[in-house]
């Protein structure tokens, strides 16, 4: 290999790989090593304790509760967000008048812009705004409900009741993301050749049938990507939780693994245990992505070729 070539490879592959190794792989390995220790986080000394952090986690009902909450989030949030975003995207692209060219509802560009607004607000601000909206005494939500004569909602703590805290939290996350995924799906749907819709319509397909027989199969790879992004977000969700219920919610009903990890590391001074939680979270994230890929493949996705 000529020298110039070696230099070329070193620069194009070696340099990025070095960065990747130092800033991604190395911290992974470090976290794993720490997860086998009893490191407090504030000294340079620790002992190796084997897998005892992991066995302790399996018996830690607060952590297990957090895992369950995260799984619930990863099930509900991507599904609802994608269904809503897809429905809206269909409306503004192909849901319009059934005469003439295939098009969206009238004024669809206006809807598109409006529904994108929430995404332009930082997550922490979304969380803070909604926590004010759901304030039991001074919040807009309860003011509207009591104004309608529903006295039951006087001082009702949406984020403080076990039955409502998680649904409300999910609502806030979904509210923040529907607009973005709608725009993503619009781009995907615009990429579908119009002839397909025309042909389907000539064959007598209605809007619903067109959605299921044309749109969905053509954008399923985009859906898969969206599902994985949203799933990873739901497995983290730290920002929203910190703003809505920093202490884990009523009876830990909205506690997430990331919150538990943060408390364990910085408040309890058990970095070894916290690292073990991080490893579990990483494994669950990988597992989630693998499941989404597998489901897409076995239901006849594009990757099957």
């Amino acid at each position, binding site marked *: 290999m000529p020298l110039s070539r070696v230099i070329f490879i070193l620069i194009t592959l070696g340099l990025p*790989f070095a960065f990747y190794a130092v800033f991604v792989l190395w911290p992974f390995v470090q976290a794993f090593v720490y997860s086998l220790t009893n490191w407090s986080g504030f000294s340079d000394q620790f002992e190796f304790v084997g897998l005892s952090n992991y066995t302790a986690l399996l018996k830690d009902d607060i952590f297990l509760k957090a895992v369950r909450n995260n799984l619930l989030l990863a099930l509900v949030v991507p599904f609802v967000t994608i269904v809503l975003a897809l429905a809206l995207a269909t409306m503004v692209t192909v849901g319009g008048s059934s005469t003439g060219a295939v098009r969206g509802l009238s004024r669809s560009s206006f809807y598109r812009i409006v529904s994108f607004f929430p995404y332009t607000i930082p997550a922490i601000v979304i969380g803070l705004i909604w926590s004010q909206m759901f304030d039991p005494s001074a919040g807009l939500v309860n003011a509207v409900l009591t104004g309608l004569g529903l006295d039951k909602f006087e001082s009702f703590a949406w984020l403080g*009741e076990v039955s409502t805290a998680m649904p409300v939290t999910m609502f806030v996350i979904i509210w923040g993301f529907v607009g973005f995924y709608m725009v993503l799906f619009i781009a995907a749907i615009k990429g579908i050749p119009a002839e397909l819709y025309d042909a389907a319509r000539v064959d007598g397909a209605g809007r619903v049938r067109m959605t299921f027989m044309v749109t969905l199969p053509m954008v399923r790879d985009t859906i898969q990507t969206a599902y994985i992004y949203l799933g990873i977000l739901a497995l983290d969700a730290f920002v929203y939780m910190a703003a809505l219920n920093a202490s884990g919610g*009523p009876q830990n009903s909205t506690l997430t693994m990331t919150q538990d990890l943060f408390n364990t590391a910085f408040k309890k001074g058990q970095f070894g245990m916290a690292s073990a939680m991080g490893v579990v979270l990483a494994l669950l994230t990988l597992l989630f992505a693998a499941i989404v890929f597998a489901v897409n493949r076995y239901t006849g996705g594009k990757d099957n070729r």
Partner: protein
Amino acid sequence: MTVRGNQVDRRSILRIAMAGGVAIPALTLAGCATGGGDSSDDSSTSTGGGTKSDTNPFGLADSGAVEAVIFNGGYGFDYVTFAADVAKKNHSGVTFGVKPSTQIAQELQPRFVGGNPPDLIDNSGANSIGLNTIADQLEDLSDVFEAKNLEGTTIKDTLYAGVEAPGTINGKLVAINYVQTIYAIWYSASLFEANGWTPPKTWDEAIKLGADAKAKGKFLMLWGKEAATYYQTLAIGSAIKEGGDEVRLALENLKPDCWSHAAVQGVFKALETIIKNGYMKPGGGGTQFTAAQAQWSNGQEALLYPSGSWIENEMKDQTKADFKMTGVPEMTVSASPKMPYEALHSAAGEPFIVPSKAKNVAGGKELLRTMLSKEAATNFAKTKLAPTIVKDTVPEDGFGSTALQSQGKMLKDAGDGVFTWNFVDNYGMNQDMLVPWNAFLSGQIDAAKLTAELQKITDKVANDPQVKKVEVK
């Protein structure tokens, strides 16, 4: 340009990359990042290179720098800057740097690991470092108490009784807590006067007052979700007065069934009645705590609020004019408690620590000594409306603050009957305890379930071999 022929194909590059991904970390695995700390033993930590004398008891060198990182919370950090300016006058060659921080643990964690922590830290706030975690790495500060202050009096003779207790871990004074905090029940003297109410001395009186409040369309108490454990502080304080030291020791040493003690249960039952009767403002579990406190101090929707004496400063901008915030000691369960009603839960707060590995240990101690001088302590009391651990810095009129006046009165009435406890902070349990307390105050669980949940949290710490225990006698 196309590249053809004998070339490295995509697959082999990926293969190399994969191998590298495994090999590089494996090679460096041996040298853990934590090994980066400077482990050279500084045997000269006790002296700073200068000559020791009464005016320079720690031997601070004539030149150099002192770095202080101060929690920038309710009290700000300007009081340390004030002390640094005073210290600068006495040590003109030394530079004193005072930096504010609200994320003590996150900011200083890498510096503790790296072995170059600052010389003085105010380890306070929601993101403070668990004292128990770093106790081994801190200087014993008893020589600061033994030293003479700037006015020439030995410092320990100028302090309130028992101030060393919260900073002492297994016999070593690792932290000097600077601010004297009083935990009490706070109310509006003007509102009580207008309605002819008196602050309750027992829980039965409190329940009766709750009925009076309800008749006026008000609640007895309220809470905010991040501060639900203020009621735990109230409950423990009240239970210790009722049952005496045995209650305190059982809790401090995380004894099994410590929450089932009759005195603790008495308080829980009373609180349960208050919640069941609707005297506790609902919705606190979803209300941000300062918003909830404003409903008390500005909206006057509830009569009583249990809190530490920082409450006046914290709610300064959100307190109704002529509120006349006043504190009284916690209620007792029965009319004949083991400790008198006047006994007071008071503890020094704002723990200042000096890490042993700091570059200028003498400088950290010298700054601390300056803060404990009459001049600096009086400045604190005057600007923050809170007493420090230094006695006699608050005049009779409390600089015009009713809350400060009542603090002086409570401290005087209590005499030697001052107590506190540390187990919640030592083991970082507050976060876990917030959960059952929010549920209990919302009426979702009853006193029995609250007891079980709290016991579970304490048992977990007690049975965790990884957690170093602090024995309290």
